[in-house]
């Protein structure tokens, strides 16, 4: 369980967000520049909020009053970046093992399980430049989970992929969340993605949480939103 209650002044507005993420996929949804990635960076410890608190399973990551600000390495939070941020000078296997502190039998088992689940058994010795977009996404996911995080942050994880890969990986993301049973905090500006993956969706506008989907979110019968959803934001 992750509890976030933070404020941070950004150039155009003040980010002011408060939410609790259970062991499910929580989607932060909003247009570009509304503060979604800033929230992820604050949770990961890559940015420091101006005030508030971030607490995960009783561990205080950040508290402005105490004050506590744990560095990223002490948080056990994996972050899947938009462009995957795979290390180009390492092969796939070295990338996946990067977050493992001490290699062990259990770590080896986890590695085998991950590459099987993500269908990347044939990739370990490839370089990153030899991978397709979908393969990079899977490797990045394996690397993030191999670190055995208590939270997984995903910044537009499917935006770099073609439509076919996107559909496949949407399902995989849901399946992985169910297996790992930790909070997945996912950022997207795609209503389809938010609907398809999120157990809970937080709507963001200029750093503020909007409690209900605005009326212009034209929810149709099949649970999908239409293009007019964007009207609220643009």
């Amino acid at each position, binding site marked *: 369980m992750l509890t976030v209650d933070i404020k941070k002044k950004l150039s155009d507005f003040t980010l002011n967000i408060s939410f609790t993420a259970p062991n499910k996929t929580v989607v932060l949804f909003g247009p570009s520049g509304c503060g979604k990635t800033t929230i992820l960076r604050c949770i990961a410890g890559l940015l420091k909020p101006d005030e508030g608190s971030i607490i995960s399973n009783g561990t205080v990551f950040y508290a402005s009053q105490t004050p506590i600000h744990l560095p*990223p390495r002490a948080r056990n939070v994996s972050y899947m*970046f938009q462009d995957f941020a795979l290390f180009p*000078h390492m092969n796939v296997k070295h990338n996946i093992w*990067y977050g493992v502190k001490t290699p062990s039998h259990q770590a080896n088992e986890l590695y085998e399980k991950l590459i099987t689940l993500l269908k990347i058994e044939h990739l370990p010795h490839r370089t990153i430049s030899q991978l397709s977009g979908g393969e990079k996404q899977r490797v990045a996911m394996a690397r993030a989970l191999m670190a055995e995080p208590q939270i997984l942050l995903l910044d537009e994880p499917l935006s770099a992929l073609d439509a076919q890969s996107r559909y496949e990986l949407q399902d995989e993301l849901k399946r992985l969340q169910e297996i790992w049973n930790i909070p997945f905090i996912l950022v997207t500006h795609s209503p389809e993605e938010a609907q398809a993956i999120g157990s809970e969706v937080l709507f963001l506008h200029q750093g503020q949480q909007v409690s209900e989907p605005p009326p212009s979110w034209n929810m149709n019968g099949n649970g999908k939103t239409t293009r007019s959803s964007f009207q609220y934001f643009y």
Partner: protein
Amino acid sequence: MVEWQPVILSIKVASISVMFVFFLGILSAYVMRSVDIPGKAALESFFTLPLVLPPVVIGFLLLILVGKQGPVGILLKEYFNMQIIFTQSAAVLAGTVVSPLMYQSTKAAFESVDKTLEDAARTLGASEWRVFWTVTMPLSWPGLVSGLVLSFARTLGEFGATIMIAGNIPGKTQTIPLAIYFATESNDLVTAGMYVIIISVITFSIIFGLNHWKGKNITLH
């Protein structure tokens, strides 16, 4: 008549100097990148100063500092019974100080590393030390090699600061540039010309080798 002593000495001095330059360049570039201190811009300018000041000015300042009556010179004499001035160590010191190219190259190389990769390493539990050694350094490597090679070539041609603090002692502190100058002064143009050819061939080979290597490694990422 061409003596090989200045050639050997030049290569020796340049090799030792670039070892210092390499570590000092990396250290200063890393510190400047990592810490946010007041007066950082002034410090940055100070590091770059040897690049724009005439080497003879650097030599003069070093002479004041490490000369027999200089503060560092007195300390070295008193505590280590050591004298730098007019020794090969002075030539190494001159070669080290006049070459901030390594600092510039390292700084540019560090800045070219995608910050997201470093952040990714941090979120995977890496300490700053590990981020530096496993991500920043390997990805900066081409820039570091460029800096190292250019520093070596620059140090090989060093004249102004060297003559100020190391002097021109044949067989001891006489490097190729000094040998060229003193051969020309004695009207021995053949010897001077031979040294010019030797140093030109060495530096051309270094730069050619670097460009060839960069051509091969430019697609490292």
